[in-house]
């Protein structure tokens, strides 16, 4: 992967082709035929070659010899499976709008760089859901990029607890602090009138969802 990330031309192809893949007709059908792919055979699939980003990746990765290339391909596949659930017309319109505003390359680049970095196979699925929300107009493109970056920086087991943060049971304060540090929860300093955190009247920190946290919870709960 280092090989093709350092190859500017290849990255430019990938960043365009990932959004061309998002806008591909019958994406769901092609991905269905590739349902049983594993890390071992992901680059041998004839079906995947019909998807622009995999065509580019195969050329760039020299038949995907490294484990990292195969994991990257798997992350793209997981991301596209989520996106494929959105009707073709909406996906195509989304990519067309990015193109017309001159944002296609930047957005594609952000998605490629992000997917390459993700350290857990649940994260590409979440990023896919975030992009789905952007395609459906539930969040704007900037918010989708910010949320995706927050997902990248998170520890996945903490991130999956985010929807519990405003449940009646709350979440562990260490988890809340971790989620606050990446920008999904807001810290408030309030007086502890009962003294449960130590001394009565001393300040204590409580954590609530901020606007990004609320948006991500809506997306995760769909």
């Amino acid at each position, binding site marked *: 992967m280092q090989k093709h990330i350092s190859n500017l031309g290849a990255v430019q192809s990938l960043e365009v082709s990932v959004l061309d893949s998002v806008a591909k007709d019958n994406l769901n059908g092609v991905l269905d035929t590739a349902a049983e792919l594993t890390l071992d055979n992901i680059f041998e699939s004839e079906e995947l070659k019909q998807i622009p980003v995999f065509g580019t990746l195969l050329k760039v990765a020299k038949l995907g010899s490294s484990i990292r290339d195969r994991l990257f391909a798997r992350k793209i596949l997981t991301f596209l499976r989520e996106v494929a659930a959105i009707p073709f017309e909406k996906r195509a319109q989304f990519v067309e709008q990015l193109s017309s505003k001159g944002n296609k390359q930047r957005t594609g680049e952000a998605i490629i760089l992000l997917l390459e970095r993700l350290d857990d196979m649940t994260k590409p699925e979440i990023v896919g859901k975030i992009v789905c929300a952007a395609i459906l107009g539930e969040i704007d493109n900037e918010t989708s990029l910010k949320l995706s970056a927050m997902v990248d920086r998170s520890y996945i087991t903490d991130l999956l607890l985010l929807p519990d*943060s*405003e449940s*009646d*049971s*709350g*979440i*562990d*304060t260490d*988890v*809340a602090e971790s989620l606050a540090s990446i920008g999904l929860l807001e810290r408030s300093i*309030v007086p*502890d*009138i*009962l*003294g*449960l*955190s130590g001394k*009565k009247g001393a300040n*204590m920190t*409580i*954590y*609530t969802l901020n606007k990004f946290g609320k948006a991500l919870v809506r997306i995760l709960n769909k």
Partner: protein
Amino acid sequence: MPAVFIGTMMDAGNVKWRPRFSSGLSDDGPDDQQLIIEFSGVLSNLNWVKLTSYGYAIDLDGLAVAVPKLFDKKWLKNKGLKKADISESGNRNYLIKIQL
């Protein structure tokens, strides 16, 4: 109308409880699903008062165990932790509001 109970902590640490408005409650509880506790004493000594990541909560199951006569009710069963809005209404006097 909410269900309202009064708890007063004695010098020995035990709490005397009485209902303020709870007569005529059906098995479904108060029609606005609101439980209010007017409490005098030290709340931090009671194990059904909890601090969570979002602030204070009341463990309704713990409260039912501590005061079964008033709180071991069908409309409070298996509710576990519930968010609580707790405000200080005077020296060691607290108003606890819980939306069930």
